[in-house]
């Protein structure tokens, strides 16, 4: 009783019915996560769904379904099914591959789909070698199963290992899943490094937790280039130096699609930005009386500079890369990108504040009513940029890639290769040599039939050319 229960369970776990059921369930449930946004903060869901619906989502982990207990269980069941099923069938396949082919007896002949019978005049050495040559040309070098002075039987087979295609395919899929599980022992995080500075901690993805690395990263230089006349970034690059144990151990210019690899960790170029309120501003101050006498000044943010005539002093109060007006006319910085760079300057005359105002590099003519004897424009900013780096450590990734390789190889073997077998038996019956040829292919019979017929045509001609 107990035994038969286990037997039934094993039969169920290794059944193809289960495979088809799981594949269908996986397909249907995967849709949920493509419709409901994943891993968002509660307010995002509450924007679209009722609180009660959201509760239900949380209960069923629909907001993080691909890592939920039930989806993981499905995947585990799938893997179990895949592995058990493949191993249960493996011995059969192995026997098929390693067994010696038997002689073509009547029973075997009955079971083979392709058969032909014809006569030959003689079984001379010439006939024998021609037989071998033709079979070798179309299939493979034949093995002699039996030979005597007036009988011959031989076998030729090709591609028997392609029968393992299904096993290789499944092994590949299992490896991909296993690699994915191993990957959970890695981490993914982000860090922003200002040009010239060094960082050795990252913020882990999706959390606020910090992680200290066992090496540090210095950003020597950061650069972004744009497409002509636009704001679309074309490329961004960082010159990074890895410092480990106080020594510079590696340098690389990374860009999007070209990460740096060190100690099992990939460092990716992921974003960039400008640090507000740091760096140097280039201003021009033109005397209103004579605009041609404009002069350029380089001022550090937070510092001031005295103009040529010694009475005026300009202080750069603030700098923002992406100026915008928020509520109550408060200045806000919309992003870290140089979309609308602006500086706030304060002008002093004889140490008395004349005004404080914002000037914009993209809108140089935006002056308003200006007091004082000078007109200022904001020419350039050599700001401190930071590079946004993503760090990933995934110890399973090579397992995944080997799985992918096996999967592709296995499918190729399955769909485009076949195991072809051909038997030829020559017997002397009443002074005539009767040739029986028979063959089969586990797949793609259409093309093997053509090969079979071709061999038949050529064999029939043996001995005909010699009178």
């Amino acid at each position, binding site marked *: 009783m107990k035994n038969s229960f286990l037997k039934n369970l094993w039969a169920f776990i290794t059944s193809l019915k289960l495979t088809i059921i799981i594949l269908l369930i996986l397909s249907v449930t995967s849709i949920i996560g*493509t419709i409901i946004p994943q891993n968002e903060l509660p307010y995002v869901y509450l924007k679209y769904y009722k609180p009660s619906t959201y509760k239900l989502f949380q209960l069923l982990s629909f907001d993080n379904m691909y890592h939920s207990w039930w989806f993981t269980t499905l995947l585990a069941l799938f893997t179990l099914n895949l592995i058990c099923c493949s191993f249960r069938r493996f011995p059969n396949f192995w026997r098929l591959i390693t067994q010696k082919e038997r002689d073509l007896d009547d029973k075997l002949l009955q079971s083979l789909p392709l058969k032909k019978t014809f006569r030959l005049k003689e079984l001379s050495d010439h006939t024998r070698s021609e037989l071998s040559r033709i079979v070798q040309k179309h299939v493979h070098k034949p093995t002699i199963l039996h030979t005597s002075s007036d009988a011959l039987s031989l076998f030729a087979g090709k591609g028997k290992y392609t029968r393992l295609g299904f096993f290789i395919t499944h092994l590949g899929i299992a490896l991909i899943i296993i690699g994915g599980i191993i990957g959970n022992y890695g981490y993914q995080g982000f860090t922003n490094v200002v040009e010239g500075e060094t960082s050795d901690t990252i913020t882990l993805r999706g959390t606020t937790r910090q992680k200290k690395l066992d090496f540090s990263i210095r950003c020597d230089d950061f650069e972004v280039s744009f497409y002509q006349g*636009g704001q679309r970034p074309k490329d961004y690059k960082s010159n990074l130096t890895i410092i480990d144990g106080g020594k510079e151990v590696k340098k690389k210019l990374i860009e999007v*699609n070209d990460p740096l690899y060190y100690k099992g960790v990939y460092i990716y170029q992921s974003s960039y930005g400008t640090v507000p309120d740091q760096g140097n501003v280039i201003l021009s101050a033109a005397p209103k009386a004579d605009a041609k006498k404009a002069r350029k000044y380089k001022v550090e943010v937070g510092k001031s500079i005295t103009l040529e005539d010694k009475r005026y002093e300009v202080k750069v109060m603030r700098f923002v890369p992406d100026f915008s007006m928020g509520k109550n006319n408060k200045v806000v910085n919309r992003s870290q990108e140089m979309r609308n760079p602006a500086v706030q300057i304060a002008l002093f005359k004889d140490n008395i504040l004349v005004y404080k105002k914002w000037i914009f590099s993209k809108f140089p003519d935006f002056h308003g009513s200006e007091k004082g004897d000078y007109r200022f424009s904001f020419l350039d900013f050599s700001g401190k940029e930071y590079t946004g780096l993503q760090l990933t450590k995934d110890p399973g990734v090579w397992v995944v890639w080997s799985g992918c390789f096996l999967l592709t190889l296995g499918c190729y073997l399955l769909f485009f290769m076949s195991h072809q077998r051909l038997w030829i038996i020559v017997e002397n019956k009443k002074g005539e040599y009767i040739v029986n040829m028979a063959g089969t292919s586990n797949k793609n019979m259409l093309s093997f039939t053509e090969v079979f017929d071709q061999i038949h045509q050529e064999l029939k001609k043996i001995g005909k050319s010699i009178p």
Partner: protein
Amino acid sequence: MNSSFFLGITTFMYLFTMALYFYYLFFRNKILGIFIKITTIIGLLAHTTGLAMRWIESYQLGYGHIPLSNMYEALVSLSWCTVLVLIVMERKYKSDILGVFVFPIISIAMAYASLSPSVRDEIEPLIPALQSNWLTYHVITCFLGYAAFAISFGASLAYLIKNRKAKASSEESSGLLPDLNLLDEVIYKANAVGFLLLGIGIITGAVWANYAWGSYWSWDPKETWSLITWFIYATFLHARLTRGWRGNKTAILSIIGFCGVLFTFLGVNYVLSGLHSYA
């Protein structure tokens, strides 16, 4: 003469070929068969020229990328792959009527690409993450896979129609469409090829994502839908190869699979959103 000119000609040739196919379905005629081949080839030549010129034009604009970067280019390139795979399949199976269900799809795709106001046809620069050779491998393998699935979809429709007709009026009307066994073989082979290509497409996509974003799989809707589609075809293969399903049942499975393809290609962009928001 620019790329739009050639792609316009292409659309016209394909619509014309589609009409010829319909006619050919009812009035078999050797010369017409050859004529269809010729219009198909002319269409494909114009198509190839159009795509090549668009590629060159993108260099002249200073962007320099293979035409695979927005919905317009995707539709045009996908149609190109489909015509190519169709020609190969028709040769391999010595059938000259497979295209009758495929050309409507190709013509609709081309016409939709050039006429729909929601498909912008400007050449646009690529964001840095998309500037990768892996993008090219990824998209081309996926598209060739989709093309094979489109052929199998056409053959499946033909199978179902013919099977019903054959049942209704035994022998006689069966002459119009290809033989059921041949259709069944085409459905299987096209799905097997598509399955392998889509598999490679998903893998190259994963390699590229790993280079660009530092993770090979992130369950974004497009990825997930391509996996769902791949699972449907895996079900098809198992059902056919190990459980011996044939005919109607597998034809229906392969039509469901093609719905998956359509949703992966279009539905995700229009209905859902995610990383792959190139449309």
